[in-house]
């Protein structure tokens, strides 16, 4: 029987860990708090070191904490990150997403900075500033940077945050042999701007019950009793991270798979491992290619989805082509699965937009932590609630209490 408004908005008779208040996906105030309490505090995967192979190479990164960054490989081969802003008049220092330059030179007044962030030139320095300001008095603002887990470059705006290893904990341990087997190289990087909440897209990597959305995954896994699909288990780690165990994907079952026999060092043939990191990074190693999802949330209903594909630095052109072909079957802008994932999470964004009359969102499947268990999302929201100081099932409880007291 259909529901009236009161019934529709009724809290589920479930533990509060097993459903979410829909406002966490649409409320602008909560989003601003996420920016302050989460985005500015955690380590973000910004680029891969292969994107800056030689001294002088740089890459820009739009940090979710609302900062423009530039990542530079110095003459000493060390990778450092700086705010992408000239300390003179606040102009953007680097305009292009990548490049190579001995120094970063601001177009506005030609102030120049080396790969350590030192100011190395101020045109007509003494004529204008005499002894009051000199190049040693100014420098770029450095942002904490660590390299790890397969050569990825991680950044953190918080000078006092724990180190990267402390935040990741053991979440990536199950994939480390594959990530560190050989030097990797970024093959694809592209963005997709989507009208939805970043947590909703991350959910599509945190639960596999939605394989009903993907005929590809049903044919190559769910419907194959010997694939180990239903034996895949979630492991939850402190900090809201979770990993999913491997399986044996039956690629040949899907016509038009176009896949070769290519694999990945130390990964079982046709294997597939996945790790979700809080708040929105996914390592997805599927047989022959590593896919990295990361997100740049701009507003509660607006997100830049960053998609990276990695192969091995030692790949021949033929192997690289096969990795791209393998990936393109299901991933990329034309991939069978990714298009379906993004349709669904964008549909959630449309249906649950602010002002809509939205029910509580269920995350209540329990199947002994196996693949259709929704523990991944539940575990994520426990960490979200801890960092936000609010329950994801009842985010306004403290305001209600305060209003009653008043």
């Amino acid at each position: 029987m259909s529901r009236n408004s009161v019934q529709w908005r009724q809290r589920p008779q479930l533990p509060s860990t097993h459903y979410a208040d829909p406002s966490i996906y649409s409320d602008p105030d909560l989003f601003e708090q996420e920016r302050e309490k989460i985005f500015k505090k955690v380590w973000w995967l910004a680029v891969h070191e292969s994107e800056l192979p030689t001294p002088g190479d740089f890459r820009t990164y739009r940090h979710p904490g609302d900062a423009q960054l530039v990542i530079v490989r110095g003459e000493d081969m060390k990778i450092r990150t700086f705010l992408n802003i000239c300390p003179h008049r606040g102009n953007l220092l680097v305009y292009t997403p990548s490049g190579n330059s001995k120094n970063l030179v601001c177009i506005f007044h030609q102030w120049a900075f080396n790969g350590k962030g030192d100011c190395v030139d101020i045109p007509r320095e003494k004529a204008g500033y005499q002894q009051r300001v000199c190049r040693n008095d100014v420098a770029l603002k450095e942002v904490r940077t660590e390299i790890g887990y397969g050569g990825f470059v991680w950044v953190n705006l918080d000078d006092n945050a724990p180190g990267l290893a402390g935040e990741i904990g053991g979440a990536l341990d199950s994939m480390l042999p594959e990530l560190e087997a050989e030097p990797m190289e970024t093959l694809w990087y592209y963005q997709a701007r989507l009208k939805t909440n970043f947590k909703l897209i991350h959910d599509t990597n945190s639960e596999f019950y939605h394989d009903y959305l993907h005929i590809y995954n049903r044919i190559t896994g769910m419907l194959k009793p010997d694939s180990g699909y239903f034996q895949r288990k979630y492991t939850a780690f402190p900090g809201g991270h979770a990993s999913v165990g491997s399986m044996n994907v039956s690629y040949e079952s899907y016509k038009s798979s176009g896949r070769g026999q290519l694999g990945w060092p130390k990964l079982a043939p046709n294997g597939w491992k996945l790790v979700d990191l809080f708040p929105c990074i996914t390592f997805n190693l599927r047989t022959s290619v590593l896919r990295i999802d990361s997100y740049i949330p701009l507003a509660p209903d607006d997100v830049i989805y960053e998609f990276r594909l990695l192969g091995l630095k030692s790949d021949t052109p033929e192997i690289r082509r096969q990795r791209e072909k393998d990936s393109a079957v299901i991933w990329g802008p034309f991939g069978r699965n990714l298009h379906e994932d993004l349709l669904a999470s964008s549909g959630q964004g449309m249906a649950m937009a602010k002002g809509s009359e939205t029910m509580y969102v269920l995350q209540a499947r329990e199947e002994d932590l196996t693949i259709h268990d929704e523990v991944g999302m539940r575990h994520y929201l426990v960490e979200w609630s801890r960092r936000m100081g609010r329950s994801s099932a009842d985010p306004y409880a403290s305001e209600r209490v305060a209003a009653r007291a008043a």
Partner: protein
Amino acid sequence: MTQTVDRRELEELVYETCARLDEKDLQGFLGLCDPAFAYKVSAYAPEVRREMTWLDRDRAEIEEFFGMLPKHNTDRNPLSRHAQVTRVRMDAARQRAEVTSTVQIFRTQLDGGATELFAVGRYLDTISLQAGTPRLLARHVKLDTRDLGWGTHLPL
């Protein structure tokens, strides 16, 4: 055939491929293609200074690919392709022509009818001239647009 007639026939072939794809007439599109047809979509990523190949299929693979499309969940909003042939290079010895077109692809919402620009780029076509009937031998869609939102299952 004169050079003028040749060029017009080639232009008509390019435009007809757009029309067939706009109609989602994938079999009709394949009917304009050579048995050795190959299809590729790529874009250059300035972030990583590398060409990304997002689709790379031969005729058999693309036929299977089309066959599976009805079984997938997919965006139903129609795409319309606006191509303009800009260059034709004949290779009489090999009975081929290299035809370059600029292309803009629009997406129109089924709900409400708003149209938005989906992608811009170029068709780099190789056309077989054998047996007097132009047939598309290879199409490389070289996109300038890299942000395609939620993407599409359809060839561009």
